[in-house]
């Protein structure tokens, strides 16, 4: 717990001093969202129909964009090897990293979701669905992205490889999240999809941090 707090505070200080790290993915998200209507056409019906897919694809790309830096500095500067060598509570460190990355990349998305709904012509029911799926789904995005970041930590071309490894794993999330928003915009019940998202989140909360830990150790060794 002490370690979690220390690592979390440290991470917040770093984020406060390197604003580009979390601001750039956010701007990327907004720009991608604007590109879709420009590319496909801004007919309100069409936009509302493809909005769930657009929002989710933009969200997972922006999370991926910010993921690479997650452990990179700590690896390059030797912080990780010291943590591994001294067998300090690494799991707390990993969790602190994931939580702070969620706070810096996904929380702003949640806060921006009314704006997004406005831009893409979603009604309030669909917006609520976007909000709820983002709430349940983005932690999953961050968990898997941190796994990708840990796996490719010492690889030569980490960035693009990270996307290659993790994007296929996002498919179930994408399917269920956009289906929920779809259902909501038709005025149907989407609690089943939310339940599936919740189940996937629980499963990955239990397993992914352990895999991240293992990946970090083998990249440092």
């Amino acid at each position, binding site marked *: 717990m002490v370690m979690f707090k220390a690592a979390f505070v440290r991470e917040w200080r770093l984020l406060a001093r390197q604003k580009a790290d979390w601001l750039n993915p956010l701007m990327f998200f907004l720009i991608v969202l604007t590109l879709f209507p420009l590319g496909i056409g801004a007919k309100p019906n069409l936009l509302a129909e493809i909005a769930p897919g657009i929002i989710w694809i933009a969200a997972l790309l922006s999370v991926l964009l910010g993921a690479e830096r997650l452990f990179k500095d700590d690896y390059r500067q030797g912080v990780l090897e010291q943590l591994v060598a001294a067998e300090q509570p690494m799991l707390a460190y990993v969790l602190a990293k994931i939580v702070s990355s969620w706070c810096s990349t996904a929380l702003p998305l949640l806060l921006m979701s009314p704006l997004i709904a406005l831009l893409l012509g979603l009604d309030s029911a669909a917006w609520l669905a976007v909000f709820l799926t983002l709430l349940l789904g983005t932690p999953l995005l961050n968990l898997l992205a941190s*796994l990708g970041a840990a*796996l*490719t930590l*010492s*690889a*030569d*071309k*980490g960035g693009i*490889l990270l996307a*290659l*490894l993790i*994007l*296929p*794993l996002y*498919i*179930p999330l994408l*399917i*269920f999240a956009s*289906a929920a928003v779809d259902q909501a915009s038709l005025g149907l019940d989407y609690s089943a999809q939310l339940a599936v998202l919740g189940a*996937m989140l629980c499963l990955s909360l239990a*397993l992914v941090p352990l*895999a991240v830990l*293992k*990946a970090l150790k*083998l*990249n440092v*060794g």
Partner: protein
Amino acid sequence: MFKWLDPYAKPETLYRICGLWFPWLMTAAVATLLLGNLWGLAFTPPDYQQGDSYRIIHIHVPSAIWSMGAYSSMAIAAFIALVWQVKAAQWAVGAIAPIGAVFTVIALFTGAAWGKPMWGTWWVWDARLTSQLILLFLYLGVIALAGAFADRQTGAKASALLAVVGVVNLPIIHFSVEWWNTLHQGATITKFAKPSIDASMLWPLLISILAFGLILAALTCLRLKTAILENEQHRPWVRQLAVSLAATPAKGSIAKSVTKEEV
């Protein structure tokens, strides 16, 4: 669990075993493949609905089955490698991955070539084809990760971990794609009826499935041999092996040296 095995003797013995099995497995694989495919191509009656196009089944189904089979065996090897730190299992992951990827490509391509006359289009977002495509992405991820590190050991371990993560995800991906497919199923796509296959058609199919399994086993042996040599190249037994094989050069290199002397 395997710690009692002498770390020296093990890769060497494994290398010998693979070398011993490979020719037999490969011969059996080629024989069964020819038997199954020729039988299926020339000696079975055509399907009453699909005509002769169904004969693609003799490569499509075996490659699809073994693309999954290869992934599961890769994941089992990866699990053993991670939990019990068995190096040979770690190398097996890298040896199986390209074979599985090729099987997946074959299954995808033959699926498309079968779909064209049946569905009128090369590609449909059918649940099975889509999961197969995602399986290919997973394979490519494992292969790409294995080759991305300056240190080969790190690459092997990382790709083993990814293979295990992938196998946990595979059922989830499969079911979500299946569910998505029922949701978005277009009216134009007619699925195949449940196969009630005649015995005369079943035998060549079973033989072809066996053949693809044998191909997987044989090529795994061959690639594992290479991986063992690559990772154990500083050991005395590998050095001796390389020297003894270099002392008896292949025909091509003799011809080359002769022409050089003549010039």
